[in-house]
């Protein structure tokens, strides 16, 4: 028997065994409000604490109300979702949450994207019956990336699920008890003092403004109006498939051209593409891989473009810092080239150039601030904005985004290949590297450019690609918990990969901590991924080493790929961290 007979509000229905009361009610066309509930089924991520008690319903013959999100249906169950008891309990529990919430909605980062706010509207809360003490914790501004305001924490524990179960970073967990209970690092340490990777997955799932990215928009506005600076901007691959969502466009809409035009209208002097940096990264990384394979260097080689992943390995596996590629990330490569080569071309001193990055990421903010990613004490990248922050700038400027004509990136840091485009999704970086490594190792042109075996959304994937007489064994992990599994295998000598791609966020950058909120809707992530591969398919050149402008850069300025000057500008080093 795979079906069960139940009653919902007096009406009989048949449902599949194993579903929750919430799902059963949904099938019956009844919407039950939720708050702590989060179900990203395909990643295997379910927040099942059932702590908010917003979704409670009445079940016949049960003494207390039950949380519909966590209660499974059983044969003969009588669910009453609309009883006075249930309605009052939901309302009461929401009023309780609101009675302990700062009323700063007007200036809160999450204004209009806050799930608590939407819930208050949905449940028609106009007065709050309860008054009393509110939490009064200091706001943690310590990090370059994430702002934590415990006073807005509703103890939904979604961030804790992401930080512990999914990412296995273990920074955020329940702290203190009773009314003072919040989610925070151990001993309520500042985020900066912990081994937080700033992956931003906590930010991506926080229903309120308790965890948000640092707001860098005001500083960018100010520098844009400052005539002393030549403002350069770059856009990451995953931004162009997600930004449209903020303007009512369907998930997966590709808005590259509109983004370029919008950036020009915002007043940037040069609009570059991080995808150029991605192609440049492949030039270096594929060479480094070939070098490691041919010279007997450390294998496997792990990708290094994800700053949260870099921070993860520094803190969690400090004795394995020889495995990641030494390549800088695409955004810092673009920054480094903008402040050297490009500066020379436009005849400006480096210090007069300010580089702004538009990233799907929260960790990129912290990456930009890393001291080693600089030259002559000038950071390669000055300001990093999330996709969301960028969207807000466009709205603030009154630009009608959907109606914008397409624009083209400025050269030479504007050209890119399909290989660069797929950097935005899990599997993309290693596919791009494989395309180039294949031709480097064999000298033959690659026939089948699409490595389907490297694609998908499974947490850990592996594939063997035959390149000449070498069977190149490739591993892919997205989500840091999956990365940990791979690293532990490597450490135990159980893995024989040549190359591994790791992205910290589930899905890769398309699911980044800085992207428009997906509110638990997996179809959005999938649509973004599809769009990424569409861009690749429709780009004339699809191998990084065919990027003519990248080749020109080597010819004019850098010399040989993986050579001396390239090392100076495009490679970096890692620092051991602690687990806190």
């Amino acid at each position, binding site marked *: 028997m795979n079906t069960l007979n139940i009653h919902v509000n007096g009406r009989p229905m048949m449902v599949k065994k194993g579903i929750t009361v919430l799902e059963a009610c949904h099938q019956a066309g009844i919407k039950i409000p939720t708050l702590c509930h989060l179900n990203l089924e395909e990643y295997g991520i379910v927040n*099942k*604490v*059932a*702590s*908010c*008690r*917003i979704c*409670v319903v009445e079940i016949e013959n049960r003494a*207390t*109300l039950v*949380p519909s999100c*966590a209660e499974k249906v059983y044969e003969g169950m009588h669910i009453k979702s609309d009883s006075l*008891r249930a309605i*009052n*309990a939901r309302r*009461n*529990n929401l009023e*309780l*949450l609101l*009675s*302990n919430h700062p009323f700063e909605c007007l200036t809160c980062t999450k204004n209009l994207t806050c799930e608590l706010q939407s819930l208050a509207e949905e449940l028609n809360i106009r007065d709050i*019956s*309860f*008054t*009393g*003490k509110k939490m009064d914790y200091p706001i943690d501004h310590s990090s370059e990336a994430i702002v934590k305001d415990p006073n807005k924490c*509703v*103890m939904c524990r979604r961030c804790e699920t992401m930080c512990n179960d999914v990412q296995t970073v273990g920074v955020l*967990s*329940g702290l*203190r*008890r*009773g*009314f*003072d*209970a919040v989610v925070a690092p151990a001993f309520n340490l500042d985020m900066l003092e912990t081994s937080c990777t700033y992956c931003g997955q906590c930010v991506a799932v926080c229903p309120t403004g308790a965890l948000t990215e640092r707001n860098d928009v005001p500083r960018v506005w100010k520098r844009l109006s400052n005539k002393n600076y030549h403002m350069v901007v770059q856009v990451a691959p995953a931004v162009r498939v997600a930004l449209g969502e903020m303007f009512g466009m369907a998930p997966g809409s590709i808005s590259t051209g509109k983004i370029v035009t919008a950036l020009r209208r915002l007043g940037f002097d040069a609009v570059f593409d991080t995808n150029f940096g991605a192609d440049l990264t492949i030039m270096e990384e594929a060479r480094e891989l070939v070098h490691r394979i041919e010279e007997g260097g450390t294998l496997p080689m792990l990708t290094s473009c994800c700053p949260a992943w870099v921070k993860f390995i520094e803190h969690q596996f400090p004795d394995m810092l020889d495995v990641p590629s030494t390549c800088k990330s695409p955004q810092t490569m673009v920054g480094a080239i903008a402040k050297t080569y490009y500066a020379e071309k436009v005849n400006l001193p480096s210090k007069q150039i300010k580089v702004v990055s538009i990233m799907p990421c929260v960790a990129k903010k912290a990456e930009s601030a890393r001291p080693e990613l600089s030259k002559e004490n000038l950071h390669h990248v000055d300001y990093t904005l999330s996709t969301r922050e960028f969207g807000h700038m466009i709205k603030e400027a009154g630009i009608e985004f959907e109606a914008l004509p397409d624009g083209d990136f400025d050269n030479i840091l504007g050209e890119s290949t399909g290989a660069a485009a797929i950097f935005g999704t899990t599997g993309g970086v290693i596919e791009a590297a494989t395309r180039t490594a294949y031709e480097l190792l064999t000298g033959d042109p690659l026939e089948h450019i699409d490595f389907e075996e490297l694609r998908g959304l499974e947490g850990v994937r592996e594939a063997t690609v035959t390149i000449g007489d070498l069977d190149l064994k490739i591993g892919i992990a997205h989500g840091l918990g999956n990365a940990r599994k791979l690293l532990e295998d490597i450490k135990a000598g159980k893995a024989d990969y040549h190359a591994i791609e790791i992205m910290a966020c589930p899905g890769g950058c398309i699911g980044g901590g800085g992207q428009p909120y997906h509110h638990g809707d997996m179809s959005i992530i999938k649509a973004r991924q599809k769009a990424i591969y569409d861009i690749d398919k429709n780009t004339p050149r699809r191998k990084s080493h065919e990027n003519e402008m990248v080749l020109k850069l080597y010819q004019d300025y850098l010399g040989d790929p993986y050579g001396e000057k390239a090392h100076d500008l495009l490679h970096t080093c890692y620092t051991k961290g602690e687990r806190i």
Partner: protein
Amino acid sequence: MDTVVKDTLQYRIALRNCGLINPENIDDYIAVKGYEALAVTLEQYTPKKVINIVKESHLRGRGGGGFPTGIKWELTAREQSDEKYIICNADEGDPGAFMDRSILEGDPHSVIEAMIIAGYAIGASKGYVYIRAEYPLAIDRLETAIKQAKSYGFLGNNIFDSNFSFDLELKLGAGAFVCGEETALINSLQGLRGEPTKKPPFPSVSGFRQKPTNVNNVETFANIPAIILKGSDWFNAIGTDHSKGTKVFALAGKINNVGLVEVPMGTTLRDIIYEIGGGIVDDKQFKAVQTGGPSGGVITEENLDTPIDYESIRNIGSMMGSGGMIVLDEDDDMVEISKFFLDFTQDESCGKCTPCRIGTKRLYEILERLTNMEGSPEDLDLLEELAQNVKDSSLCGLGQSAPNPILSTIDRFREEYEAYAYRTKRTTYAIDDNKCIGCTKCSRVCPVDCITGEVKQVHVINEANCIACGACYNACPVDAIIKP
């Protein structure tokens, strides 16, 4: 072992050895048939038989829930698993209750013996005693007892040359009240935050390390060796229809004989309070008895003759709980009493679910407003409605029972709440014109000089200045001072 304490109504099973043997000497315990139940179990009984004896004894959980112990054992026994666990819940936390502590301090071997028997019955080879770190003497004695049991071969491999092996470990809790809830206890035992999780799954299916786990309270375990040795019929003969055996209560409050008592189920509260407890201090008027600690309620004069068992005590608006019994007299303010308990629960809430984390805080704040004479009749409505909501929608037993002290006292003493809500309650002392003889004693002791009056004339208290210290009340020779 069958000790009826003379001249009282007490009957000692759980406390049978407390005070009679040296708890630090295993030979003393053996001398009173200690470990004989274990020997009988391992030599004569199958695990199924042991479970049947416990089932037929109708022993029910003494931690407060009253779930049939034998059925709990059976549920854990029937699970197939390579590993199972026995846990003794010694995280006693009700204010003023110390039944478990006394058993562990006075007779630790009885609990150890019972845990080994339980391990045999359900198929577990490892047990943990989760005990609060605030019980250093109990911890010491348990450690000593475990060491001795190991050296005698009662713990370890092939106990009594059987195929059964069992080991026992102590785990110290940090004293969070919520860790008495079994899922929170298991989380804490695993090194996680001590907070409850949703049931099902029950520990009998997925408990410690996701393995089938049986959690029993100290007092429940202490009954086991006696039941095994004397049989379920003997145990069934004690108590009421649905509650067999005895219950240990911690008598406290305005009662002459404070301390632990163990009485057969079905004993009336009047017997406990007046016969065993010796009545109310200073012969004051009995007002109520609060049972079940912060999860329970009050029982008033009209129900003093109810024979107490799990069901009857619930029917009269309270609960058995772990056995706390606080006697209140005419001077006690019931709103203050519920405020005291709410202060406790809002502090001890783990903070996981909304109604308990914020709801108990708001309940406490409403009570505070009322007792500060800053409340309103609407506050009283709010208090009742919110109390019902916290009870109805909290995640675990702590939150679901936290409003009980409020609901129970409102039910019995609504007028006291209303006096605060309508602000008709007098907060200062007054003088009865008809009784005052003008002796001036009150005005001489008043620390704030708010009593005026000529000698042999009626005195008056200036209510604006009165601090309600009660000095005048104690000084008055003719009982003319009216208390607030």
